[in-house]
């Protein structure tokens, strides 16, 4: 039964990826502005050269054929060459993906650590005020605004901002994400604390710190599933932060590829993002199936 569900999940994900890719390709093609203009900037080109470049980029074939050709190429590993830069699409997109992955994982890990610390202070040590201030402050501004604020701070303190390095975007994402992640953790921990086994431990005289650690272990799986998905969103969407700090991740890549109508890169981008998000979605769905019986069961 379990395997059947997993197979269905995979099939659904696969279809979703195909459809998303096709949609984005079509949408991008419908726009004013095209890669020819970008390559040639403010200059014109004669029709013969235009045709030569167009056929090299595969833009002169009928639309449905273009999509089919593309799908086939995707699965044979040939993602084309970026019309905008000197590198194969796969290399360009993969590089940005790795960068975003590093950022997302580090941000998630660090944010979790911060949240756990805050939760510990709040629940085990009673610093309730402190640990409600930070999350509220954090979610009072979106990551984009935090990015601006932090950049301004750093500039004023004459701290060299490593533009292109991971430090500033990481800091921004952690500061901006604490609010959201903390709420998840907090509500989970509160639910856990109302479980019977906590009463039991209290009755046994266990210290509040030890109880906290036990509750944490219990709540971790569900917390991880929630954050797992968010991590995928960071990869695709920490756009503002990447743009502000010139960090070469997926967000920055999208902005650049779009303004230069770099279709091969756009499609490669979407493919990787859809695959990642769908896989993450699928994994969290599967994990939910595991979780459910146990939440109802007794530890």
């Amino acid at each position: 039964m379990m395997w059947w569900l997993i197979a269905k999940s995979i099939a659904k994900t696969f279809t979703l990826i195909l459809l998303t890719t096709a949609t984005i390709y079509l949408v991008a093609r419908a726009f004013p502005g095209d890669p020819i203009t970008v390559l040639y900037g403010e200059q014109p080109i004669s029709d013969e050269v235009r045709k030569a470049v167009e056929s090299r980029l595969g833009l002169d074939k009928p639309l449905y054929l273009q999509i089919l050709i593309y799908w086939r190429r995707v699965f044979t590993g040939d993602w084309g060459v970026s019309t905008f830069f000197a590198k194969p699409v796969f290399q360009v997109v993969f590089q940005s993906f790795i960068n975003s992955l590093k950022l997302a994982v580090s941000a998630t890990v660090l944010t979790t650590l911060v949240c756990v610390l805050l939760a510990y202070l709040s629940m085990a040590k009673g610093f309730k005020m402190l640990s409600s201030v930070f999350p509220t402050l954090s979610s009072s501004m979106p990551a984009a605004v935090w990015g601006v604020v932090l950049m301004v701070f750093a500039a004023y303190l004459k701290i060299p901002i490593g533009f292109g390095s991971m430090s500033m975007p990481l800091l921004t994402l952690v500061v901006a994400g604490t609010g959201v992640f903390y709420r998840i953790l907090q509500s989970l921990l509160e639910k856990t604390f109302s479980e019977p086994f906590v009463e039991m431990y209290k009755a046994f005289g266990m210290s509040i710190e030890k109880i906290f650690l036990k509750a944490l272990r219990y709540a971790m799986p569900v917390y991880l599933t929630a954050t797992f998905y968010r991590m995928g969103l960071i990869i695709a969407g920490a756009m503002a932060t990447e743009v502000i700090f010139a960090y070469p991740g997926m967000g920055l890549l999208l902005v650049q590829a779009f303004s230069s109508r770099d279709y091969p890169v756009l499609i490669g981008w979407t493919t990787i993002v859809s695959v990642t998000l769908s896989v993450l979605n699928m994994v969290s769905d599967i994990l939910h199936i595991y979780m459910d019986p146990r939440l109802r069961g007794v530890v």
Partner: protein
Amino acid sequence: MRNINKNIVVILVIAFVIIMFLSAFYAYNIHRVHSTVTITYTYTYSVTSRLSPLTIAISTDISTVDIHFATGVADFEILGKVYESLFKIVLDNGKLEYVPWLVKYYKQLNDTTWIFVIRDNIYFHNGKKLDAWDVKASLERSMRISPIGRMLLRDSSGNPIISDITVLNSTAIVLKLSKPFTPLVEHLAHLATAIMPREIAEKYWNSPINSTADVIGTGPFRFISYEKGSKIVLARFDGYWSKKPNISLLTYLILPNPSARISAVLSGSADIAVGISPDDVSKLRSSGISIYNVTGVRLVLVAINCKRIPDVRIRQALNYAIDKKAIVKDLLNGFAAIANSVASPVFPNVYTMNPYEYNVSKAKELLKEAGFSNKTLKLLVSTRSAKDIQLAQVIQQYLAAIGINTEIIQMEHTAFLKKVFREHDFDLAIYGPSPSSLYYALTYWRTNASLNGPQYSNPVYDKLLDDIASEVNESKRALLYKEAQEILWSDAPAIWLYYEDIIVAAKPSIKGLQILPFQMLVLDNVLVD
């Protein structure tokens, strides 16, 4: 199944995350190995005095690695350090000069024949010696597929000006022209006609260069690496034929955010920052940063669609309605020069015209005469330049004062280019051409020229341009230039505004920095203290 220990699931999840993380690093490393490019250099490193690295923060990324397809400022700035053309543009006493560069000497044999002798001591970055075959291949490629190259080396009907290039021996070539073309030397100084190895030109005969390993030129720096959207690294070419720079490693950081560039130079992550706004100058100076500025060739103007507004009086009225003095003084803090000519005065043969003084009543009068009232005009501006956007709002206000309602439409740069230069779908549009010579500047306004956004068309003017190209007598030519500029000025296909200053910030330890009015940094004499 239901009794699976939750611990195992937790461990699985964590393991999955760690594996993803590790595999990412692993795969990344494998990828790096595969993409390493090996180029062997056979030069002995001579002992030099104090070489230092230099980091420059720039505002846009390069759009291509192929010099023949370079169009943007960043393209010319960076690729212009890697490639060289037959001639070079230098600034001497406030005027531009076109001097022989890769060419040792040249002679015009008759009206349509030129002979160029190339220097004998020039090597490419890959060790190959430069010869006449490389020059022939590069020029032919530029004429064939370079968008700017085609514009520079074709006449108004689109016929190539150079009909034949013959190689005499390894250092001499003969150019045969289809008709006399006096701006030839000026145009061969443009980087769109830069020289590359023959093998590479032939390999990429029909399409742009798309591999960094094939970016080979004769310039003082060689191309090392390119991280898209992030940074470009060049290194000193020790086999350079002319004076070698004092810079060992040249890094260009791409920081589109102006305050990011300022932070970079304030904090020391960058030595030089370009694209500084006039509003930031005083703060930078008070923080001990040196400011360099030079009046640029970029003529900021508001193009007026001549097909939609054919009446000259209306276009002139628009010119009278704008207070250019106030804009230069208040909006730009004096970091610009009012445009009283159709091209920057650094070019030879540019004449100053009768200015369109700020005169609201005269503007209103002209509009009344032409019967133009109660109209709404669409003003297009590209989002690329923040100052241009501010300018748009200022123009909107001035036009409102003479009774014209303006709607500002901001467009992303590529879409803007298409709307203005291909579809010609606008009433007014703010942009700024940056020509490399006066002739080039005048050809923008030729009938059906590719950069003729407003679709201005004047057959008398077109004929004048052709006459200029074929007139060999210098003083006659100067008169023709004057006439052409006067016609253009009074026909007013645009509101002529100002020449923007190029403002560059540098740490005080940087000495010897020069700026060309094309927004190019000259690093020949730069020393880091």
